[in-house]
């Protein structure tokens, strides 16, 4: 009798054992901030208006947000960068992973990984500064050669509203493509050999092997990597801030930068709280969609 109970208890509690540390961290450090922000967003909470600090104002902050043109512009900017960068990074990254896996020997692969990691290991602040130096309107290396070809003699890459978004997107893609590349490469490397050997014996072509073995195995990992990158793209800030400060005008102000301004330049945590929560909700819904689409249904 006691033996059965013991086994059942072990089966029930073992998963939780694996999870307990995580749960503690998350519950303590996650829920408290969220309730604080929710609280802020329902009040007037700004250092710029100390006389009304803490007064409940209902949904006023949310209405203000909805009517703010800059807020909507920043969503447009974020979605533009997102819409271009995510597919480009995914396809480029996947392609690099495939090439590194199939076409290159173990030794060369191990050598190449190091230079390919360089963009990733660069702090966003540094990325911003390095590319600022490269794109600088009068002395940058890029500008110099572009001038020779006849471009950017008036206006500069980062100073023209039309070229600033593509430039920033390029910087972002340069920085993060290998994130997807390396993870998918690791995923490819961890694939078991068995199914391939069996398929080869059955006479499958490379394409068939890819479609029926590689792709299904990698799908969960791909889904995860896309969700992670998607979330980070929506929250793009550091590079933009250094490169352009959101300008010219608001043409490169992302939603994250707008959230930053409201919270840490205007010190308006009521309004900023509303924006933050709204932001969070968008990302949540987006991730839900991705998650459902890519989780293994077995």
């Amino acid at each position, binding site marked *: 009798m006691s033996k059965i109970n013991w086994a059942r208890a072990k089966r029930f509690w073992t998963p939780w054992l694996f999870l307990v540390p995580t749960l503690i961290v998350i519950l303590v450090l996650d829920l408290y901030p969220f309730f604080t922000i929710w609280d802020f967003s329902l009040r007037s909470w700004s*250092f710029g208006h100390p006389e009304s600090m803490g007064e409940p104002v209902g949904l006023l902050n949310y209405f203000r947000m909805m009517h703010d043109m800059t807020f909507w512009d920043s969503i447009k900017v974020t979605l533009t960068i997102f819409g271009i960068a995510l597919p480009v990074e995914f396809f480029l990254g996947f392609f690099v992973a495939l090439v590194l896996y199939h076409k290159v020997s173990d030794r060369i692969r191990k050598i190449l990984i190091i230079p390919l990691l360089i963009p990733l290991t660069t702090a966003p602040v540094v990325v911003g500064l390095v590319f600022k130096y490269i794109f600088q309107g009068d002395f940058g290396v890029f500008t110099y050669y572009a001038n020779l070809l006849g471009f950017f003699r008036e206006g500069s890459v980062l100073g023209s509203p039309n070229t600033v978004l593509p430039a920033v997107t390029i910087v972002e893609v340069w920085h993060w493509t290998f994130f997807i590349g390396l993870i998918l490469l690791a995923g490819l490397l961890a694939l078991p050999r068995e199914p391939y050997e069996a398929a080869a014996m059955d006479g499958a072509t490379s394409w068939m092997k890819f479609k029926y073995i590689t792709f299904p195995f990698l799908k969960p990992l791909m889904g995860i990597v896309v969700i992670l990158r998607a979330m980070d793209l929506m929250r793009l800030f550091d590079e933009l801030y250094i490169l352009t400060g959101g*300008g010219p*005008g608001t043409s490169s102000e992302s939603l994250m930068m707008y959230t930053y301004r409201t919270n840490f330049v205007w010190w308006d945590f009521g309004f900023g709280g509303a924006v933050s929560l709204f932001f969070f909700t968008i990302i949540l819904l987006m991730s839900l969609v991705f998650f459902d689409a890519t989780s293994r249904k077995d």
Partner: protein
Amino acid sequence: MKYAGAGVVIVAGAAAGAYYATRPAAPPGPTETTAATTGPMQNIELHVIGEALPPLEGLNKIKDIYEGEHPGVKIVIEPYEFESLLQKSTADLAAGTGQYDCVMSIYYNLGKYVENGWVVPIDEFLADPTIITPEEYVTMTEGMIPGALNSKSEYHGKIYGLPFSCQTQFEWYRGDMFDDAVEKDNFKAQYGYPLDHCKTWKEWRDQAEFFTRNKGETLMGKKLDYDFFGTCLQAKRHPCTWYEFICVFPSFGGRLFDVEQNIVINSRRVADALDYYKSLIPFSPPGVLEYTWDDALIAAQQGLLYHQILWYDASYAVIDPTQSKTADVIKFHAPFPVSDPTDPLCKPSHSEGGWSFLVNAASKYKEEACRFVVWANKPDIQILWARNAGLAAQKAAYEDPEVAALPITQAAYYGNLNSAFTNFGIWPKEPWAEEGYDKGVQALSNATSGAMTTEQALDWLADELASITKKPVLEYLSK
């Protein structure tokens, strides 16, 4: 149904939060700290936060004098870049953590710090004769550049901390071109009046236009192998652009508020100023819309342009031959021109970019911190500091022969700092000033990049300021 569980949690949490949020909350104040009494040989570490620049480095060099006079006290100076500085200092003050005892602050943040109860008023300094006696205070304040005390440290009638460094912008120009006989003759021939220091903004632009030359044309008798420009702007979307604009629009007679406290930032005068500002773009290097004061300095160092508006504290970098190609030929001049010298409303305007020195109300060593702030403002210390790249608030520093011999000081002090404080008050010090400033930057960037017309940009700014300050807008330009 799949996420029913999560849904219930969220809704319940939201409801609970909303209920709680409808209770009025007590605003945060600095936490009560027991002030440590400074006795002899007590180990005190004073933390000072300031902007990472030669003047702060200068302070770092002379602080051991203070440490020598006050054994047991160590001064730790932490330099930060401008925007990081604003964040860290405000965060520290707001949370009452007392990480920094002495905080350097820009003038327009004073109201925010005062009304939230974060900084120590001068009365507390004066209450303790070991910190400063009333006589010393009078000597000190009378020795300051006129207007500095009230402009930087006064808020609603009371003084907080002490002004410590004062700086403004002035004109940087190429002395070699200004003196070149051929260029002077050509200028007179083309514009009808001699080349001289500008009295009006039109003259400024004329000179910019005159000196903008393409590669291959001649300048000072030599053929250019790169494009040369007459001027440049600090037009990036960054506080630098509003600082620069403050040098322009008041001298067109523009103001933020009129006497009845209506918002007139979108008046015709300011619009003219903005149109003028934009009209300088064709005579500026192509990268001008991404220029901060930093890039403008580089352009000056590399000899890319004729004249521009730039800061006093950057001037040390341009007269340094190890970094600047134009070290010998750059000259400085003040005051700035106005749009119409016959109009009494148009006075030269100079944005002020120095730091005032405040004591954190949550500091654990308030007494000692106050003492240090006072020490840093003493005339003899300020003279010493000015010799080490300091930007003093004391007149005496500028009269010191060593300091006065620096090529930049004359322009900085006699011309500019005087006028900076006489024409001060352009940008308010109310708690919302920082937000207003940021929106001003956005409006300017919208206008210079062409995303909005001048009228639209200024109207937008007026509306934003109206909703921040709850004051009415007088009239609109574009509606």
